[in-house]
């Protein structure tokens, strides 16, 4: 049996269903962002951890030139090492008839036993290659899907300069290639980069690696220090052309998942709190105004003998009901979007199983945060209700004292009509309330701007990377180092307008105890196809000597222009030199170091050589260029910049775009929630006044204009404040989003301010329509009968 007070509660909720729903959606938006970010993160983390565990993902990796197999025993004997597996890993060119450009591949050997001890394969279909069949191949699912390859099909690959027809016998996944990205690529492109596995014997025969290896994967003992193991492995492999061992954090697939998880965790820690904060604020406004309009009822309840606590609890329960609706909605929305995002991940991150894990603790935590929000938002208002004395509550509130506004005293209200005065004085009479509404709307604008800004940031990033710093149309990667004469061959290729050579060195940079494993990219000093830019987007020329560091790298190493740092070249002889940092470049994608190529070659004590070339091409001749390159000896593959921009955009649009659209949607819900509530409350507070005007003969539209005018004026005031809040929030979020791989530029475009403002104006207009509908249905007789 429901008590009368509870029945009143339920009926109040029903009576105010529009407002209840509006507030509940604000809470729902906060809960949903929290649930979606956390469950997506949890799903991804769980899938990764389980995959790593079951398929024995290694923790230390190393590449080298070539070492005889017995060296493996020395590695096994190292302190902290549990398991060692050697392998042959080769970049190869695949000739795919359905792709114009040469397609690059990375083939890894499978041990003689068939199944790798570390980084085991998950066979999606087919089987592993037979030990006695050197022409059998297992392909990674991503590449196979992109080209429609099924077990039984055959492909042509160029192994060590020889064309070989290989039969695909299986399609597989590997914990090493959850995120498959070609060297030098920014985004996965399954059509142009493929991963495959062949028997050790087959690869050894093709590359003359009998009883030798060029790659090692290591599992360390639990509790062993990874940097120590890395250092020990480096010492063993140095004489064999080891290019520096590294842990998972420098493993490209792992690093990308990590960066994604970082982003998710940032989203979970930055965006939902803002949403929760805004909804607490809104609840405060709404509940306190609701209590204001209910003061007679409160007085009555107290006159009957209900205690202050009972009355207070009644209103807290009201917020809890709103909260419960909001939490339920938020759970549903959060789980739905969380599942959608997780499904989307399975396109970029290749897991055997990536299932959505709806951990109950996340949902409970969301509910807890929601309740904390609701209670903190309503506490002040309910305390006020508890404090109302029965007699005070029963008598009508003293007539509101209005005064001339400051503006009028300065004679600025001269042109105002009576309706104009009503609007202006009402706003001025309740400055705190008006300010609260303005702040609420401004927060909604701020949320919109801070979510929309990601698109701006990406635009700036793409513009800066592809159109300012990387202006080449194509990059050609050679199979081995080539002398500078290659420039001559390149310029004879069809459609090549300009060719510049490049050399990339894997290095470890050290400044005192700080060190970073990175790349030095050497390009020609007189080159025009790439350039680094300074903070203010000014082109930085390459100095004839010394390093240009990306600003991120400079921060990590704590160096500034003019400092000298240690450079260890990880390939070849482990040369160690000291080089000055001449300039700091501003970079958003990657964090590399740059040097004039001649200077780099000199430091590396090699003649003038290059490992890749940048081309400016005639777009019309692109197809014949790619055909020519495909057949050219010594070319591993090409990267077409236009294609990269396209795939990058696609990735952003599909992936980040979806996530951001969800946030923008939630921010819009908040915007509608705020504006509708302020309009609706304003309506109930002034119903009597409005009815009087209607009785006096004002038309509906004239009466609606008073409310709409007030809402419009407050919204107009909120827009500049909202833009300011948006700027601050955006800056905070961008700062928190910086990871090793991506740094987002902060570059709010005017169109984002405009779009957010337009969205708010539309939300306000919607709310105005709802208010106008109320005015339309205003029951004059009933309103006038009620005392003010």
């Amino acid at each position: 049996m429901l008590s009368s007070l509870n029945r009143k509660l339920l009926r109040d909720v029903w009576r105010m269903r529009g407002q209840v729903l509006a507030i509940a959606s604000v809470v729902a938006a906060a809960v949903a962002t929290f649930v979606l970010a956390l469950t997506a993160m949890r799903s991804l983390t769980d899938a990764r951890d389980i995959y790593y565990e079951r398929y024995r993902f290694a923790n230390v990796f190393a590449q080298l030139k070539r070492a005889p197999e017995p060296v493996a025993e020395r590695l096994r004997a190292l302190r902290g090492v549990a398991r060692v597996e050697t392998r042959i890993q080769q970049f190869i060119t695949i000739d795919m008839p359905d792709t114009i450009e040469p397609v690059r591949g990375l083939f890894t050997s499978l041990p003689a036993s068939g199944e790798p001890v570390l980084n085991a394969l998950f066979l999606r279909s087919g089987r592993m290659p037979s030990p006695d069949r050197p022409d059998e191949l297992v392909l990674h699912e991503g590449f196979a899907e992109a080209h429609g390859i099924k077990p039984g099909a055959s492909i042509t690959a160029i192994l060590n300069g020889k064309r070989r027809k290989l039969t695909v016998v299986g399609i597989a996944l590997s914990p090493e290639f959850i995120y498959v990205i070609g060297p030098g690529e920014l985004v996965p492109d399954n059509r142009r980069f493929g991963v495959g596995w062949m028997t050790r014997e087959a690869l050894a025969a093709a590359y003359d690696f009998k009883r030798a290896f060029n790659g090692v994967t290591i599992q360390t003992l639990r509790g062993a220090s990874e940097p120590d193991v890395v250092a020990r492995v480096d010492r063993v492999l140095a004489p064999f052309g080891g290019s520096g061992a590294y842990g998972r954090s420098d493993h490209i697939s792992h690093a990308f998942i990590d960066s994604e998880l970082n982003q998710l965790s940032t989203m979970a820690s930055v965006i939902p709190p803002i949403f929760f904060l805004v909804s607490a604020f809104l609840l405060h406004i709404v509940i306190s105004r609701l209590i204001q309009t209910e003061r007679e009822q409160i007085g009555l309840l107290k006159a009957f003998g209900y205690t202050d606590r009972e009355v207070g609890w009644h209103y807290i329960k009201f917020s809890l009901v709103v909260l419960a609706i909001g939490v339920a909605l938020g759970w549903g929305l959060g789980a739905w979007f969380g599942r959608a995002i997780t499904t989307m991940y399975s396109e970029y991150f290749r897991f055997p199983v990536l299932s959505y894990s709806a951990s109950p603790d996340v949902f409970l935590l969301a509910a807890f945060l929601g309740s904390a929000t609701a209670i903190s938002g309503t506490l002040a208002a309910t305390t006020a209700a508890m404090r109302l004395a029965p007699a005070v509550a029963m008598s009508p509130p003293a007539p509101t004292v209005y005064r001339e506004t400051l503006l009028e005293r300065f004679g600025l209200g001269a042109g105002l009509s009576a309706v104009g005065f009503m609007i202006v004085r009402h706003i001025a009479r309740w400055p705190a309330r008006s300010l609260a509404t303005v702040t609420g709307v401004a927060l909604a604008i701020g949320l919109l701007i801070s979510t929309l800004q990601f698109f701006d940031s990406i635009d700036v990033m793409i513009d800066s990377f592809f159109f300012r710093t990387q202006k080449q149309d194509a990059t050609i990667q050679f199979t081995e180092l080539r002398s500078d004469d290659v420039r001559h061959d390149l310029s004879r290729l069809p459609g090549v307008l300009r060719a510049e050579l490049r050399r990339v060195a894997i290095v470890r940079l050290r400044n005192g105890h700080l060190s970073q494993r990175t790349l030095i990219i050497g390009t020609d000093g007189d080159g025009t196809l790439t350039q680094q830019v300074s903070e203010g987007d000014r082109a930085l020329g390459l100095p004839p000597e010394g390093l240009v560091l990306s600003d991120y790298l400079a921060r990590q190493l704590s160096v500034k222009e003019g400092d000298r740092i240690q450079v260890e070249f990880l390939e070849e002889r482990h040369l160690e030199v000291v080089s000055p940092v001449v300039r700091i470049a501003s970079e958003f994608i990657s964090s590399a170091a740059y040097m004039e190529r001649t200077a780099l070659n000199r430091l590396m004590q090699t003649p003038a050589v290059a490992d890749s070339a940048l081309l400016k091409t005639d777009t019309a001749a692109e197809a014949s260029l790619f055909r020519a390159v495909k057949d050219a000896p010594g070319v591993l593959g090409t990267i077409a910049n236009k294609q990269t921009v396209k795939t990058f955009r696609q990735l952003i649009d599909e992936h980040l775009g979806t996530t951001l659209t969800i946030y923008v949607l939630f921010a819009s819900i908040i915007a509608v929630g705020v504006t509708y509530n302020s309009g609706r409350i304003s309506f109930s507070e002034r119903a009597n006044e409005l009815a009087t005007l209607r009785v006096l003969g004002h038309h509906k539209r004239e009466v609606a204009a008073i409310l709409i005018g007030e809402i419009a004026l407050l919204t107009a005031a909120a827009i500049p404040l909202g833009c300011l809040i948006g700027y601050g929030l955006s800056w905070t979020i961008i700062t928190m989003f910086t990871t090793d791989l991506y740094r987002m530029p902060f570059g709010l475009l005017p169109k984002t301010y405009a779009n957010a403002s337009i969205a708010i104006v539309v939300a306000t207009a919607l709310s105005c329509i709802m208010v106008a509908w109320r005015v339309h249905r205003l029951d004059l007789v009933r309103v006038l009968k009620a005392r003010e």
Partner: protein
Amino acid sequence: MLSEPALSSETAVRATAFRAIGLTKTYQMGETLVHALRGADLDVYRGEIVVLLGPSGSGKSTLLNILGGLDRATGGRLMFGDTDLTAANDRKLTEFRRRRVGFIFQFYNLIPSLTARENVTLVTDLVAQPMPADEALDLVGLKERADHFPAQLSGGEQQRVAVARAVAKRPEILLCDEPTGALDSATGIRVLQALADVNARIGTTTVLITHNVAIGAMGDRVIHFANGRVATIETNAKRADPAQLSW
């Protein structure tokens, strides 16, 4: 005072402002059907002051609302001159109120954010040839307090502002629902005085609802309402000056 049947031969020749024939009004209140008017027949003549007396729930407020175009009758006819108000739509009723009717309520219903003068201009803005706001306030003796906000005025003053607001557009009809209900007798009399003055000066047809039998004396006619219809109509030979009233 003479007692007479509705529609006497003497009054029938005078110009009619309202003619109500068999007005009924029912509305749903929860699960019960309330008959607020059960066939009210009534004429209101131009320029007269009619006092509607009757117990709570007798239907007098419902009638006033229908006369003023705030509400529609369920059945019967209501003519205002040649206009059939029972057939008018919402827009026409608003126009009717806007051009022809002034209202005065028990709780004044002033707009608290507007000064006395602005409360008056609020309605004078609506019509073509209104009385200047200051003149209307002068009429109720409040010219000096034109720049005061409602919260700065006493109850009687607020109600006089309401009278000024109602008469400033020179309405043909003035409808007053318990205009003295919230006031003490001295203040109430000042308000009634104002109403009588307006009627005398601009000849506004005035319908006044009250519980207070004493007020009946200031009207040309007193219509007693009971059970949703007109019970009796009394005609006063001479209207009493509100100053002589007491309760």
